[in-house]
């Protein structure tokens, strides 16, 4: 078991299935917003952190607001409101991760460091489906381009209506499909491949479609 798996397992342990419930002590919207903005005054910080350390309801609220502030549609509106040209963040999203990646590389090089893949906002590579694509006579194999550093791939094949036809995982960049799959001639299928790039991080390819057109029997 590597560190990624161990961390995944730990995350499983954190997941208790409990429903977070608000209490009278829960933080108000102003404090949640200040925490999400990283703008809480020093004197209020210890109390607020102590509360969210023990309150999954408020912790979820802080995490949700951060997610919202990373949503493209919302950042676009905030940029307009604050008089910035929409898209300026993209410059930071490229430049900052490059600098961070260089720092991380140095950190990961250190023999005393855990070999855990850190989760950041750096640029990622994505796997690309190679085949099957378009109209094919039969489907026996699937192949895709690899992603550097990826230790696992997950392939999913869908019907055009979104039903899952086949799903599998493996370390290779190709697979042989089992005979048990009942393909329908003339039907359109879609497939995608996901590459595991870190602990609980998957880079997903575009959906690619193919249609099986079998030659009529002689």
């Amino acid at each position, binding site marked *: 078991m590597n560190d990624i798996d161990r961390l995944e397992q730990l995350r499983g342990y954190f997941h208790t299935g409990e429903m977070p419930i608000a209490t009278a002590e829960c933080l108000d919207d102003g404090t*949640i917003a200040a925490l999400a903005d990283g703008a*809480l005054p020093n004197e209020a910080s*210890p109390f607020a*952190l102590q509360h969210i350390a023990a309150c999954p309801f408020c912790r979820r609220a802080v995490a949700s607001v951060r997610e919202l502030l990373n949503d493209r549609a919302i950042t676009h509106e905030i940029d307009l409101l604050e008089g910035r040209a929409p898209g300026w963040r993209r410059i930071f999203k490229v430049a900052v991760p490059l600098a961070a990646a260089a720092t991380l590389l140095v950190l990961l090089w250190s023999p005393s460091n855990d070999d855990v893949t850190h989760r950041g906002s750096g640029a990622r590579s994505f796997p690309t489906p190679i085949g099957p694509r378009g109209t094919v006579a039969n489907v026996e194999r699937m192949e895709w381009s690899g992603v550097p550093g990826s230790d696992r791939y997950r392939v999913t094949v869908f019907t055009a209506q979104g039903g899952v036809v086949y*799903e599998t995982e493996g370390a290779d960049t190709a697979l042989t499909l089992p005979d048990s799959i009942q393909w329908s001639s003339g039907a359109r299928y879609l497939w995608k491949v996901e590459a595991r790039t870190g602990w609980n991080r998957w880079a997903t390819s575009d959906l690619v479609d193919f249609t099986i057109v079998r030659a009529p029997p002689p």
Partner: protein
Amino acid sequence: MEPWVVELQGGKSDAAWDLFLDRYRRLVFAAIRYYAQDYDDIMDVFARVCESLRENDLERLRCYVDQPGHTAKFSTWLVTVVRHLTVDWFRHRDGRRRVSSIASTLPPLRQRIFEHVFLHKRSHGETYELICSTGEASLSFGEFLKELRATYNAVADGRRGSILRELLGPPPPEQVLVVSDESADDRRESLEFALRSLSPDERVAVELYVVDEMSAEAVAKVVGWSNAKAVYNHVYRALSAMRSYLSSLDGAGRPTGKI
């Protein structure tokens, strides 16, 4: 100072409201659309947000404006309020029925899995046993796990997944897809034991980074650390301190002995 604030401080609430809405309508809609897909839902939530902000002569807006020193930016505060009202609207309107309707597009077996796991909060093992014992389906445990994972993937998809995450909590990782006869209380108790040695900020950082999957940059902002590197250092040091706990887990995610 923004024109709507000037009007508000001048006691002209209606004019302040019109100017506020004119300026922030699109941001409010963007925050609602993060959670809601259906046009009617979006408009109903928007009406609820407006109603709440207008209550008691714009009390909420007035409270923010009257604060002597602002901590969060107004846009962040507004997004926080809209999120709160949107999630409450979904939760209060018809929580369970609404959640069930989200699952209505799933194939029958996945609908049953959804009901057992998400609505009735049954464990995966219990769900498997119920499905087999009631004759709803005949499938091996491996096949069941595949269906279970597909159900999680389907309900966590896109904006529908955003509101479900709020209403039902984060989906478990794949490692939890194994049968565990430990109750949530037992697991939480074991976890509390392991986390007790951490300081509040370290504990918050670990939970936000590990459970909520926030980026290290965002975690650093919340806990007030200088940068992402500080988060990596603190979190991995904290996890190292819990190493003995990790090593005491068996393959199914259960502690094998005393921690």
